[in-house]
């Protein structure tokens, strides 16, 4: 737009920017993002790791597509790995062999792809835990929490479909288990399996189908969700940890340009470097050791990729029989008997279902119990939300018990105990573990809060032992500075809210249940130190000081 006083840039960068901007109009973007403030904390890194490993997956996966042949046509392997020469296998397996042995750097790319996949799901999971334990999912970020949860599920889907592509013995066996689980679904299961495999297992259709899921549909969905996810992060602005100068109304941190962008951009290369290091030195998925898929052989002690483990473990924990009662129910219908395969359905669907349902619903559950519908941009230190931290720990233990069960045979051989005993113990832990975890974690949080109170009221131990004129020893306590004191006292403190009558003066059943939960969560709580309490403590302290700080004497 030619106006009378046109902006004339004076530097080369300026002229270039001016050229581009007067054609595409990017200055608004630069103004918006160039100095946008992002809070910095090591725990905010996990989301970045997830993003970067996904980029690595896109890069390495695209390389693999140029050589991988997603076909189940039966051919005879004739590549340069001698032990398998002359063996019949699918074209998919043979091309994966070729990527490994006859494409220079191909093995490296496969390893980068597989290790990135493991790290991708791991960083997604840790990122979610970070968001959960710090309460970052609270209003206005509930929807982004849900989007993140769907991303995790899509990550699992991407991993599973990819793992199945090479059509080696292990991946075929994984599909065999999927076939068994699908068939267990009542009424539709058999058809689903037939549709998925194009007929009976294994058929010759499933790899091409998994391929279009793996390289197109699932990544497209992930990219879409990722864009929504990041868009919402920008809209909400990042949360920040509490502390002096950080309020619910401001963002304290570094500007995108240059510090934040440099750190985040540099971090991509660091993640890449670490993945490359691992991929160079640690072998993963050596399909040439497993051989092509064949329904007959299987090697003991093989493991699925780690993120599938919890479902596999749940399948292992379920008893097929209780005494003489079989969990395969034969239901007599007028047209004949049908089978409800609870021994597979229950473990395959219920634990994962409960875990994900509670996870998705948690922001609303918490809001309902606490009646706290305010916007939260300040995070909680996990100790300052004992109920939530304890629930999270219970969920983690629930998951980990199932996960451990997927390695029950390895646990048994490693520790020289009977396999069946390992399973019995894990079955008990499956039910009791989360309860213990809840109880212990809450106790730990409350003690940490009490310790914080102690520090504010009586100062921190300075590590200096003093001898009083009377000869008594005591440790010098140093009062915390105002910044630390603010950090330790400024938390959001939830109280038990008894059941409230509604407008008509009636206390509804759901309100009673809410109050019961609220009581369960917040009955025990540690309130932050108030200025008046501190004053009282100081008064008392002053008195003691005259007495030579006897109350802190190490002779006690």
């Amino acid at each position, binding site marked *: 737009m030619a106006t009378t006083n046109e902006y004339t840039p004076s530097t080369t960068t300026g002229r270039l920017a001016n050229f581009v901007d007067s054609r595409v109009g990017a200055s608004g973007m630069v103004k918006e993002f160039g100095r946008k*403030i992002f809070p910095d904390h090591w725990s905010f890194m996990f989301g970045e790791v997830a993003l970067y490993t996904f980029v690595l997956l896109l890069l390495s996966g695209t390389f693999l597509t140029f050589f991988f042949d997603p076909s189940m046509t039966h051919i005879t392997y004739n590549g340069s790995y001698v032990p398998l020469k002359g063996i019949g296998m699918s074209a998919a397996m043979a091309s994966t062999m070729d990527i490994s042995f*006859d494409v*220079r*750097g191909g093995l*490296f790319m496969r390893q980068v792809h597989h290790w990135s996949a493991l790290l991708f799901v791991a960083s997604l999971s840790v990122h979610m835990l970070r968001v959960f334990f710090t309460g970052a999912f609270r209003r*206005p970020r509930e929807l982004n929490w849900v989007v993140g949860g769907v991303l995790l599920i899509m990550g699992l889907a991407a991993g599973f479909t990819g793992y199945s592509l090479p059509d080696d013995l292990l991946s075929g*066996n994984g599909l065999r288990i999927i*076939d*068994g689980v699908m068939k*267990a*679904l*009542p009424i539709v299961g*058999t*058809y689903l399996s037939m*549709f998925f495999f*194009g*007929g*009976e*297992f294994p058929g010759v259709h499933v790899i091409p189908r998994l391929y279009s899921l793996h390289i197109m549909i699932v990544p497209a969905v992930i990219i879409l969700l990722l864009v929504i996810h990041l868009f919402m992060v920008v809209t909400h602005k990042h949360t920040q940890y509490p502390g*002096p*100068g950080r309020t*619910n109304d401001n*963002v*304290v*941190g570094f500007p995108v340009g*240059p510090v934040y962008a440099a*750190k985040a951009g*540099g971090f991509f290369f*660091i993640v890449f*470097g670490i993945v*490359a290091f691992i991929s*160079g*030195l640690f072998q993963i998925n050596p399909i040439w050791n497993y051989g092509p898929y*064949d329904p*007959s*052989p299987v090697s003991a002690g093989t493991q699925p990729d780690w993120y599938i483990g919890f479902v596999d473990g749940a*399948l*292992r924990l*379920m*008893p*097929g*029989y209780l005494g003489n009662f079989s969990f*395969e129910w034969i239901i007599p219908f007028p047209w*004949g008997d049908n*089978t409800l*395969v*609870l021994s*597979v359905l229950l473990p395959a669907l219920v634990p994962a279902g409960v875990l994900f349902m509670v996870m998705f619903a948690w922001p609303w559950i918490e809001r309902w119990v606490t009646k706290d*519908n*305010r*916007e939260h*941009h*300040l995070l909680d230190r996990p100790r300052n939300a004992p109920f939530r931290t304890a629930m999270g720990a219970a969920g983690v233990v629930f998951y980990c018990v199932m996960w451990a069960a997927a390695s029950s*045979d390895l646990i048994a051989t490693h520790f020289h105990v009977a396999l069946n005993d390992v*399973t019995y113990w894990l079955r008990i832990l499956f039910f009791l573990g989360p309860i213990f975890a809840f109880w212990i974690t809450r106790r730990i949080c409350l003690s940490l809060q009490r310790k914080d109170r102690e520090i504010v009221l009586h100062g921190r131990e300075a590590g200096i032992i003093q001898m009083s004129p009377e000869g008594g020893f005591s440790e010098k306590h140093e009062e915390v500075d*105002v*910044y630390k004191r603010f950090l330790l006292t*400024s938390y959001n403190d939830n109280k038990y809210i008894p059941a409230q009558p509604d407008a008509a003066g009636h206390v509804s059943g759901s309100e009673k249940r809410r109050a019961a939960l609220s009581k369960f969560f917040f009955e025990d709580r540690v309130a932050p130190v*108030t*200025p008046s309490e501190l004053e009282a403590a100081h008064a008392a302290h002053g008195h003691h000081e005259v007495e030579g700080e006897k109350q802190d004497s190490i002779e006690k």
Partner: protein
Amino acid sequence: MGDHSHGSPEESGTVAKADDVAQDRFPDPGLPPHRPRLADRDPRAAKRHERQVALLFTISIIGTLFFFVAYFVLGRLGEMTFAELRVQNAALGLGTAFAMLGIGVGIVHWAKTLMPDHELVEQRHEISSEKDRQDAVDIIDTVIEETGIKRRPLIRNTLIGAIALAPIPAIFMFRDLDRTGKTAHQMIEQMRHTLWDTGVRLTRDPSGTPIKASDVQLGSAFHVIPEGLENAENMLNEKAKAVVLLMRMDPQEMNISEGREDWHVDGIVAYSKICTHVGCPIALYEQHTHHLLCPCHQSTFDLANECKVIFGPAGHALPQLPITVDADGYLVAQSDFHEPVGPSYWERG
């Protein structure tokens, strides 16, 4: 705190912020004072950091060069031993790792030591203002009003009907994901049958050589496939149903139920190898205990009791293949299995 945040959030659309609890609280002392870094005060330290960053970038360049060495010098297509391949893979990995870490660590070091480390403060804004939300709702109301859809239920209802129906063909299009061209009934029937039939010889997996009853020693186990499997139309599909484990134990130790008395040959018994849990092949036979163990989820079957489940998640016993010997002394099947093999499904009954 902004003045946009009074009122109860339930009643107005106004958003309450979590800070709004005026209580007996310590006042916010504000951001702690900024501590200058060494490089902020000492130009020599700054120069040193500069050199460190440059060194890291140089390491990256060397890493990339090393990658090329690994690619061209260590890698010769098609004539490498496995050990050489591993060395090359490690070298590619290390080259890439140094190339990337050099850049990454260099940039982060640069940002941490030489770029300004003053934390800045920015105010948050409402996600969308009360006014905007009201305007948006008004616009939507106007749009809906102008279509007249509320006043003309006939249009609305037929539109709903049309839109509800239109996607259904897209779902039905997927009917032919099943490539067999068979009816549901035929498929269910097919799942009940395997290649085993009267007189089909039991042969070794994978060689396909037939087995004489006299070959099967007490305590031994054979992996068995039906004769002619390699010529079957869908070899893997048939194999996935027909694989069998053949074992011999003392007939005295076996509990045999009614109707199965003649399914074994002198204690030689054949059971489906496909686990009834979710279908892994059962690989382990412990001859002392006569237990069969599935490696996938540890279902354990008792051979002495017609392979009933004694531990683990499987919900029914392994199907038994009735066998006998033919005129030449080879083991053959009397018939197909009497029940479907493998994992249970709705129609199994």
